[in-house]
């Protein structure tokens, strides 16, 4: 019983964390942050454009 509660809680935590990363942080930003923490070279740039001219 205790074990199933623990597993459910962990799965719930995992799901909530993944949803937060996806909705509020974004996979790309998360990946970039991990890269920066690990000291890896940036390999992607997002370049915006505003077609107003």
């Amino acid at each position, binding site marked *: 019983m205790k074990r199933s509660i623990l597993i459910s809680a962990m799965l719930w935590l995992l799901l909530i964390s993944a949803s937060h990363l996806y909705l509020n942080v974004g996979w790309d930003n998360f990946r970039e942050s991990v890269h920066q923490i690990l000291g890896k070279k940036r390999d*992607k*740039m*997002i*370049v915006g*454009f*505003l077609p107003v*001219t």
Partner: protein
Amino acid sequence: MTKHGEGDSTFESRKFTDWATVKEALIGERIDAVFILAPMAMQLRIDGVGVKVVYLGHRDGTAIVVGKDSDIRDFADLEGKRCAIPSRYANQNLLMHKMMKEWGMAPDSIDLIELPPPEHPTALENGSIDAYIVGEPFAALSELNGTGRVLYQTKDIWEDFISCVLVVREDVIDDDREIVQELVDGIAKSGKWLDDGLQNRMEAAEIAAANYYFQDPELLRYVLSKPVDRVKYTQLAPLKDDFDEIMELGYEIGVLPKRIAFEEYVDDSFVKPLSEIDWNMEHLAGADVEAAKLAVEAIRKEAGESQ
């Protein structure tokens, strides 16, 4: 998304429709760089956003367009008329004020109206405006439709006119100079390739039409060839004299609240002579031209089927 360069770097393009969202995206670090109007970049810096101009997008490529049968023959004829501009932060707005000054006209002698560029040709056609000043391809569109006539190309009234500039977040510049350099080198090389010959421009029209702007390839071919120096993609280094002139004009007409020094908002350390750029041009020049042509055909076919 565009993946290019000799390394594994990826440059993803993201379209924005308004200025406020661009600013938020830069502050929120959701984008690393952006092509925006030169006075907008200055305003961002004045507002305390940590960004720097590192390169230009192009030179020239803007025109003042009037109705095909209009009696407007020179700039003085625009007095008392309604003329659309893309934004008050557009260099096109500054150019109109510069011209009014040069022609001895009062600053309010032309009724300047802010209008999104895609609406300029339609507004001219339905008579709600008498003229418009805009970047390509919207100037060429009226010409091609037979509803408009170019009064002036900017190359004839403000030599080497600057419209869009490449702005990069300062923290990206500080932390990842290599990838910024790769981007700037790529723009420089592709610009040189575009200015190298008409055939390259025609290929570029196909690629851009299919992958980026979803414009009619014929329109883009027209923009890139009639005349061939209508838009220039070389000499893209940000020069102090050019930017000082824009800053001064912007301040003078009240678009910018104060002047700031060139060094505060420009980082020209990424500019290198083309000969020093180590970048595989073939990778870009030949990139997906055939795939782009197929995509254009598919779009045409789809459009035909839906009619």
